[in-house]
Structure formats: C-alpha cells, structure tokens
C-alpha cells in the first residue's frame, strides 16, 4: 500500500492552494461595508468589512458544503448545519471572551492588553480553525489516523502528540502563501499587522509567553470551539442537554500567570457555568457523536476509503480539497456506487453484537468485575485485546477471516465491520485518573489556582464515569443479510473471538433488532 509522506501532503496542500487562487485571488478580495448576520445560536451578530472579506475566501466558502456532523442527520434529520456557520460562531464566541477578559483585567492582575492585532489574530484563527476538515467532518478523518498521517505532520513540525489530522491540515493550510497574501491585504487595508504563522500557532493553542491565553481561547479544553459546537449541535439535533449560559461562561474566563506565560483560566464563580458545559458534552457524546448509527456509517466510509487507497483507485489526499457532495461523486466514479447508495439512502449495516466489558466473561467471571478487583490476568487480557484491535491491519484481517469463516455467499468485503474504540477495555476510572493538563486552572477567590475537579464533584463524576461505562464494540453486517445467514456470521464471530482470547461472550452481547 502506498505510503503517504510529508512531501505528498505538502504537495496536496499546494494543489489546493492553486485552486483557491483560481477561484479568488487575494488581490480581488473586496471589503464590503459592515453589516449583520442572524445566527440561531448567537442571534444578531455584527460583521465588519474585515469579517466579510475573510469569509469570502475559498477555504472558508468550502466549509458551506462540509456537514458539521457528518452522518448524524441519518439519526437527527435536522442536523444539516455546516462547518461554515460553526466557524463564524467560534469567532463570535472568541470575541466575546476577549471582550470580557479585556474589561476584567484592566483592574485585575495580571493586567493584560488585547490589541487590535491580537483580536484579529484570534478571530481569524476562529474562522480558519476548521479549513482542514475533510468531507463529512469526522466521518472521513479516521482513514488519516489509520495511515498515521497526523503523527507524521506532528513529528515533522514538532507540534506535540495531541492533535487530530484535521487540526494539523488546518495548520498547514493557514501557513500557505495564499493565506499570507490574504492577511497582508487585510493588514494593508485596515492598518493591522497580521501574521499567518501566528494565526496557525493560535489554531493549535501554541502561542507562547504573555499571549498564550489568546490561543487557549481557540484551542484548550474549554474553548470557543467547544462552546459553539455543543450549543449548535444541540440546537440542530434537538437533543436537550441543559442550558449553557454562554454570556456568564464568557465572563467567567480570566487569565492566570505562570512564570513567564499567561494562561486562560476560569474564575471560581464561573464553576457552575463550566459544569453545565461538561454536562452538555456528557449528554451529546453518546446520544449524538457516538450514536451507533453514526459510528456504523463512518466505519463504512472509512473502509471504502481504505480499499480505494489500498487498491490505488484514489489518492486519499484528494479529500483535502473535496466537500461532501464531491466525495460522494468521487467514490461513485471509482466504482463504489453500492456503498454510495447505502450511505445516501440509509441502507446502513445493522448491529449483530454490541459488546461492553461487562458482556465478556473470563475465568468464569465478568471482565469488568475482575478489573475492578485489579485481577492481573484480566488486566493482561484487556491489554491484549486493546493492543490487537489498535492495529488497523489486524482488524481488517480479522474481519476478512470472519467473512470467510461464516461461509455466507452474500457477505463480501466490507460487508462486516467491527467498530472498536481505542482502549476499549480500560480500568475503572477514579479521581486519580484526571489529568490536570486536560482542564483549565481555576482562579480562587482568595487567590491562587486549583485543579477544577477538587472544586467540582460534578466534573469528577462526569469525567470518571462516562467513558468507562459507555465504551462498547459494535459488530455490524450488511442490512440485506438476514435469517440463518445472520446466525452463521454470529457463530463465526463468536467462535473466533472466544478462541482467540479464551473468553466467553455473554448473551447480553448479542444484539437482535426489534422488527
């Protein structure tokens, strides 16, 4: 299989940049008079001539045709919003946060001054933070993780190990000559001094020193991105997840100094607003983002893209320049019309197993119970299972073997999929698992800072329970397979996995549809 190199990625980004130039040269950017737009989440929102000029550029206009939630509209029909309005929302929330910080820290230490250049750097980062998103958003991102592309970019630019592929693509695209020219034009016209490199660093939360907090606004664990997408996704899906007081939340941010850097923090009085945000996320993740239908659709697309790349029918880096419709057309063109029809017409694979750690028996006892007793053999088993399925090649081979073993003529390549989260079986989480670096520091009323979970049992509860209890493996097959053929596939899977790991699948692991 063709290996993707950093040179390939740079070449692909350059080709996309060429397309941008052909659509709208930076010299042709117009500065319309200020106006307003209406947004369902943020209401009437003022836009300046700079905002309008930036929103006109092709990388942002492309986001109008990238669905925010990928295949979630198969579950929640209203979820048709796009990355475009989300990006506008992030810039709007970021501006609110900066206004609140400016006002607060005129008198509160440390004193800060958010200059015009800073404001626009952060807003522009808000606008472009998702330009690297692929068609169907996270729906097609997995293939890049499988091919290790994110890690290659991180290593090449020494960026740290915690970024998703789309974030890294946004970073690379922001550093192109095209964006540099756009920002130069804006700077010249509006007496600013904007720097594309600085915007790129802001997208990844990497500004340094006394301006660090500015990039935290765009990239941290309680940032403008999360605030906007939780509110927006909740609205468009219709999932009621409690009220997030965005105004109070924006005003609860503060900055805290650590040695030579100034970081974003939360004031103690804003704790309840942050708890509401965490609570929202806790509802949205299992009901929307990790809903089984979405997981299945994404897994179907990932496999199709994997086969296309493996068989050299498509250069996977093409996805960087495509939108949802263009990707569908492309995979149709290269001979996967059957999958296209299944995705478009909701003929998705159906579950035959849903396996949680509590559905697996080992040495005569449930695995989750053994792990809670720190049983060393159960821990070893967990490690083995996690490690085995962390390898994409092993997973693909496993699926192929079950397809072969089941001896069902109608079951072809891609007809069975196993969707397994990373670290599927993990130890029960306690407060000791909470990593300080995953949370903003809380500035106490009496001075000093504290870890957020020491002040909030709600956040401890949310963070320690949900991932552990809801982690499950989905095994799904083509929806046309029915009756005794389904039984053959179930038997093949059960026998293989039980013999491989010396476990037993309990009846609760079997999934039967209500028809």
């Amino acid at each position, binding site marked *: 299989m063709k290996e993707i190199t950093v040179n390939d990625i740079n070449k692909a980004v350059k080709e996309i940049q060429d397309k941008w130039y052909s659509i709208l040269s930076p010299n042709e950017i117009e500065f319309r008079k200020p106006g307003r737009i209406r947004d369902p989440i943020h209401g009437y929102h003022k836009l300046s001539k700079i905002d309008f000029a930036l929103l006109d550029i092709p990388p942002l206009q492309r986001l109008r045709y990238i669905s925010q939630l990928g295949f979630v509209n198969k579950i929640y029909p209203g979820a048709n919003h796009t990355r475009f309005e989300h990006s506008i929302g992030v810039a709007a929330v970021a501006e609110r946060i900066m206004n609140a910080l400016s006002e607060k820290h005129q008198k509160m230490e440390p004193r800060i001054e958010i200059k015009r250049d800073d404001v626009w750097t952060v807003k522009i980062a808000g606008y472009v933070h998702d330009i690297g998103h692929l068609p169907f958003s996270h729906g097609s991102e997995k293939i890049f993780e499988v091919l290790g592309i994110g890690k290659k970019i991180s290593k090449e630019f020494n960026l740290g*190990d915690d970024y998703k592929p789309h974030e890294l693509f946004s970073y690379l695209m922001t550093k192109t000559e095209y964006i540099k020219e756009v920002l130069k034009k804006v700077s010249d016209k509006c007496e600013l001094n904007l720097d594309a490199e600085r915007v790129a660093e802001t997208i990844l939360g990497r500004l340094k020193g006394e301006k660090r907090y500015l990039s935290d606004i765009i990239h941290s664990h309680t940032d403008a991105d999360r605030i906007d997408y939780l509110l927006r996704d909740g609205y468009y899906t219709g999932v009621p997840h409690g009220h997030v007081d965005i105004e109070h939340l924006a005003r609860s941010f503060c900055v805290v100094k*650590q*040695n030579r850097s100034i970081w974003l923090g939360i004031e103690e009085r804003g704790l309840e607003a942050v708890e509401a945000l965490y609570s929202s996320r806790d509802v949205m993740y299992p009901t929307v983002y990790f809903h089984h239908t979405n997981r299945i659709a994404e897994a179907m697309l990932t496999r199709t893209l994997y086969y296309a790349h493996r068989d050299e029918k498509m250069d996977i880096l093409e996805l960087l320049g495509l939108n949802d419709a263009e990707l569908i057309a492309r995979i149709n063109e290269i001979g996967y019309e059957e999958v296209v029809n299944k995705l478009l017409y909701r003929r998705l694979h159906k579950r035959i197993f849903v396996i949680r750690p509590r559905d697996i028996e080992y040495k005569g006892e449930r695995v989750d119970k053994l792990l809670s007793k720190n049983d060393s053999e159960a821990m070893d088993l967990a490690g083995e299972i996690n*490690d085995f399925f962390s390898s994409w090649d092993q997973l693909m081979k496993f699926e192929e073997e079950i397809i072969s073993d089941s001896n069902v003529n109608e079951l072809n390549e891609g007809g069975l999929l196993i969707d397994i989260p990373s670290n599927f079986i993990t*130890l029960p989480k*306690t407060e000791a698992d909470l990593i300080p670096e995953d949370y903003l520091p809380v500035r106490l009323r009496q001075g000093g800072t504290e870890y957020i979970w020491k002040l909030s049992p709600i956040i401890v509860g949310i963070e320690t329970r949900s991932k552990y209890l809801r982690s499950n493996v989905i095994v799904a097959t083509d929806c046309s397979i029915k009756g005794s053929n389904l039984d053959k596939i179930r038997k093949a899977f059960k026998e293989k996995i039980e013999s491989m790991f010396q476990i037993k699948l309990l009846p609760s692991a079997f999934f039967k549809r209500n028809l």
Partner: protein
Amino acid sequence: MELNEVEKLILKLLYKADCKIKGNTMFQKIMYILKSEYQDRIHELKSLQFKLHYYGPFSRDVENMLIRLVLRGLLIREVEPVIDYLRYNYILSEKGREKAKELYHSENRREVIDAMANKVRELNEKPLQEVIFKAYRIAERNGL
C-alpha cells in the same frame, strides 16, 4: 504485543531507580526532564512529543504508555489519598521486575541508564510543585 522502545526504557529506569513514582503528574514531568537532558544519548526519548500546559509539559503518548504497562501487568498502580485528592503511585510488578531486569542486563548504555535512574529517584523525592516548576521552566526555555 511488543513493547515499544520508550516502554522498555521506562521499565529499565524503574528497575534501577527502585522507587514508587508518586503520581501521573510527577511521572510526566520526570519524563520531560529526562528527555530534555538525555535525548541526545538515548535516542528513543526523541520520539516523545510534549506540549506545554499551565501545569507543565505533558505527553499523551506517555499517558497511554503508562496505561498499557499497567494493563500488561508490568506496572502496578496503587491509589493513595494525598491531603485532599487521590493519586496513583506506580511500581514495577513481579512480572515487570523480571522483564525490566532482562532488558537492563542486555542494555549496552547502562552507564547512562544508571544516571537517568538516579535522576528519577532524586526528582521523585522532591515536592511535586518543585518538579512541576523545574519542568515548566525547562520547557519555556526550550521554546515549548
């Protein structure tokens, strides 16, 4: 599954240091300090990528490796209440000790490993805040 080079290094260090690492945060900061001081001599440290946070440099890979080593039965983690919060301490299990011993004795950079292990022991004995600040200052100096 095979241990990666950094996981093997962690086992060797804990074997020679012969101490109980006091918490995830301590472990992260120790690994960063070791990386900044020894990566030219211990090449596997170069692959570790850290990001600077308010509480100092952090690596998701290091976090995942610790979990893997626990799940593979090579490390034991014990919960300890510390004043007003809970912390995991990490120590080699019997199985981990045997594996680490085997790895250490086939190691040809023992002098450097020993020096690193002394550093681990020394840092682990210090108050956590002191180690966090030390790692933080090094990270700022390194332009992280």
